[in-house]
């Protein structure tokens, strides 16, 4: 049997999933210079809110096209509420401080959010496979594939295009670019830097929640689901170069295909191969594939 189509399709769907999570991390790092360890928790919260919306509003069967806009709505709600809240209350205090402080603040947020999720939704897993069954299966090269993962790919591509459009073709995007290039100068020129920070973090949160919400129908939504996501996303943004959206896209394609190949050929090294790739890429190009080289302190 030819396993190439399986590897390709598996790899691409895994890559799309990874892109949704890591695009937010790399964008937030680009603007705020903070590596957000709590990003996995935001992803998990997106999944929980999405599952809750479907259970509440889509009826017992969950077998309706209504479920898909509900998932999108969940991501928007999380992005608009939790994003600004976290940025205002917790992150604003640590801008411009040592990197370890930013890292630890988000680590603290990660610890807090993990328990908050447990307090709100309990420890029982949520199953919302309605949208997954809704889309059914399709035969490609003689093998039956679920259609739902392809939806994830489409969403990832749309999210990538949206991000590209926002950064390169909107007024907000220009201001973001200014802030990334030189915060102080941007402020001096009249750009409202704190507002850009807030909106950037909200956008990153929205992307994490979007990834979580649309993943919810594919798996059981349970505590700890953000734990492993975050290190995978770190691997992707490390490979692609921190702060580069294109880098994240390339990084998750590489990681997705490598993992799918490993699963089909050498299942034992599934996760190993991802981190090994990251180490290899960083040794070859210490700033990642698309990372900007930072100036040394003089």
């Amino acid at each position, binding site marked *: 049997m030819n396993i190439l189509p399986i590897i390709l399709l598996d790899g691409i769907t895994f890559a799309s999933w990874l892109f949704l999570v890591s695009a937010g991390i790399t964008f937030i790092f680009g603007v705020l210079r903070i590596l957000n360890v709590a990003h996995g928790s935001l992803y998990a919260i997106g999944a929980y809110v999405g599952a809750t919306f479907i259970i509440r509003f889509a009826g017992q069967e969950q077998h309706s096209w209504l479920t898909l806009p509900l998932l999108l709505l969940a991501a928007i709600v999380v992005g608009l509420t939790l994003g600004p809240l976290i940025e205002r209350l917790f992150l604003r205090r640590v801008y411009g401080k040592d990197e370890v402080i930013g890292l*630890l603040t988000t680590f603290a947020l990660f610890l807090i959010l993990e328990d908050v999720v447990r307090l709100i939704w309990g420890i029982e897993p949520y199953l919302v496979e309605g949208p997954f069954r809704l889309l059914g299966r399709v035969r490609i090269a003689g093998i039956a594939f679920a259609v739902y993962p392809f939806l994830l790919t489409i969403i990832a591509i749309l999210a990538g295009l949206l991000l590209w459009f926002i950064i390169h073709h909107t007024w907000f995007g220009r201001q973001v670019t200014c802030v990334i290039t030189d915060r102080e100068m941007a402020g001096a020129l009249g750009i409202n830097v704190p507002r850009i920070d807030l909106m950037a973090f909200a956008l990153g949160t929205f992307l994490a929640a979007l990834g979580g919400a649309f993943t919810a129908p594919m798996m059981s939504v349970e505590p700890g689901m953000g734990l492993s996501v975050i290190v995978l996303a*770190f*691997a992707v943004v490390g490979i692609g170069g921190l702060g580069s959206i294109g880098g994240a896209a390339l990084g998750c394609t590489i990681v997705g295909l490598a993992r799918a190949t490993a699963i089909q050929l050498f299942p034992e090294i599934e996760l190993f191969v991802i981190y090994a790739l990251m180490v290899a890429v960083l040794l070859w190009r210490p700033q990642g594939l698309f990372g900007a080289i930072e100036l040394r302190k003089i």
Partner: protein
Amino acid sequence: MSEITTSPSLPLAVIAAFAVMAVLPLFLSDWIVFLIALALAKGAVVLGVVLLLRGGLISFGHALYFATGAYTVGFLANRFGIGEALVALPLAIIISAVAAAALGVLLTRFRGIYFAMLSLALSMILYTVLIKFYDFSGGTDGLSVRGFTLAGVTSADPALVQYYLVLVLTAAVVYVGARFLASPLGYLMQAVRYNEIRIEYLGASASHAILASYVVSGAVSGLGGALVAYLVGHVSPELAFWVSSGDFVFVAVLGGTGSVFAPLVGSIAFEFVKNYALKFSPNTWQLTLGVFLLLVIYFQPQGLWTLFTRLRVKPRWLRR
């Protein structure tokens, strides 16, 4: 983060603190003694993290050496039937130091957030290896470490022997750490934090200083891991997981980087907060720890250690 503050000689206060801890088992119940021993052993790992933090390097992967030390003990006990601490502990130190030397060569090229991410990736590699190679590492079950001899003698009260073993060895680690920080190499690490190019102009090598610190840091962390393996009696891949590394950085900042004794203060504070958080709010202990960490970052960013050094009228033995 600390300014340049190094005490070249160990203050008497630290010796006094160790003396107090030496008599603690006479007064306190077993579980507190165990908790202190565990905190001290983990404190050795935190000291390893602090040695690098002084150079401005965040190792978000020190669980790598922690797990290496612990699994050295686990392998010796399970695969070779060696439960002798005098064999296992030096071996844990050597293996961790060799691993740190090999990986340190790669890591010295990195600074800032990339140093953190690469060390994270390296520790996750160990984690995946430990999980997947079941025959070799016991997979997610881990390995149990039973039996424990010191110089061939099996003690009647192993908990007490372990406590004193940990106490003596952490005292040694603190001494080594203090000597290291007071050495030219230690001072060089502080300079690395501020300005590398100037170091190079002065004729010293920043990457050599970082490598040396990394090896010492790895060795110390390996010892801490080995001690924890004996104390807990079990090793599992979770030791190498990224959350474990996060905890060490957490405690390092909690204690502060102002002194070699600060990691132990931080570690003891952490274990007790964690213990009581688990006891009084079993569903929200992580939340409690997170809030605690945020409070320290916002209001005591130099770490708990500065609570001592900030005293307006310092006792003579606390003056540097």
